[in-house]
């Protein structure tokens, strides 16, 4: 699994952090998404998919 994020789209809603705190965080300055782990272990897939589905700005893409 590989994750792509689009900072330009991110609106800082923090849904991804709620869904998968091991994989996503937010920058302190502007709340924009930070990818903590671009290639997370497979068992996190459901959480990561959940994050992508929750993101209101469609800023997260999961490539399996």
């Amino acid at each position, binding site marked *: 699994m590989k994750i792509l994020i689009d900072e330009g789209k991110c*609106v*800082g*809603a*923090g*849904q991804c*952090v*709620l869904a998968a705190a091991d994989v996503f*965080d*937010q*920058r*302190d*300055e*502007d*709340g*924009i998404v930070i990818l903590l782990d671009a290639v997370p272990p497979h068992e996190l897939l459901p959480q990561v998919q*959940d994050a992508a*589905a*929750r993101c*209101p*700005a*469609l800023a997260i893409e999961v490539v399996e």
Partner: protein
Amino acid sequence: MTNTQHTRTQPTVRTCPFDPPEEYRTLREQAPVTPMTLPDGATGWLVTRYEDVRAVLSDPRFSAKRTIPGAGSPEMNDAPVPPPPPGMFILMDAPEHTRFRRLLTGQFTVRRMRQLAPAVEKIVAEQLEAMASAEGPVDLVQAFALPVPSLVICELLGVPYADREEFQRNSATFLRLDASPEESQQAQTAMRGYIHQLALAKRENPTDDILSELVQSGELTDEELAGVGVLLLIAGHETTANMIALSTMCLLRDPEQLGALRADPSLMDSAIEELLRYLTIIQFGLRRTALEDVELHGHQIKEGSLVVASLASGNRDAAHFTDAPERLDVGRPFSPHLAFGHGIHQCLGQQLARVEMKAALSGLLDRFPTLRLAVPVEQVPMRDNMLVYGVHELPVTW
């Protein structure tokens, strides 16, 4: 406008105080995208399915600006609407919107809001103590649900303690139903003026709060700063207050769900998401304007048309919430809901709202183990015709 297509009106009559109007179910099944006359007489399209609501709200062809002047299509609502006041970014599109949102998101991250939790819990505890010292019954709205978010916004904006009483009085008038248009205009002007003054004071003496950071960023004019402050107040006060009061009422009359929550407080997070979904207090949905012709389920939505995305209907859509969406289930596994909207305007304050609801509901249930309604459910005055649904008053005792 007279157009036979628009004879259907947006459903507003509820049969149960916690369920959206019954007609939504039929609409989702038979006419998920339908021409509609809205409660205020405007005409447009009503979108009722979960997937379509998300699609509309994340599609840049649907603008958050009110009607675009001069588009001239038959579905257009003709009165041109003035541009949003400075700082009112909830009514702006990208990139204008982005400029404001980016400045604020850093202040509303999951982490920042969790750091604020102790301050919120303290406010909650103080309100509960004051309430407990009174004899029941008390009106939970006035005693608890309204003051908590108001004080939290004071904390967030950095309103000094000495000013809080007046701040609360003004914001209460601002939100009061029976205030005359002059009164509420006056209160709004007073709030704007106050926040403006406060911003100037923060420029001199910055403290640790949003307003100070915004001032220091140097990105906003004084008018924009005041506008952002007023927007945070409007968007964050009435909504959270109604979620606290309506959630309490909903739980008090559902002994089974309340019992489950009291027995296992670790259910609180999922209970909050479920209450947000189940009650969807932005009851008439979100309005957007088509910037160009858009096809939706075979309907031609003409440029300039108003489109209403029904959050309340989408949140009861069995195609997405497959396990009995009409039931309140505090243990329901999370599935993204629409209570905070979707797309670039999705609620900026949602993490704060979660922190506030959690502190308020946990605090209330802990402090008053025998809390109950002081009047029959039918006698609770509901906010049926208000944009933000909830209760006008909630007499409780213990």
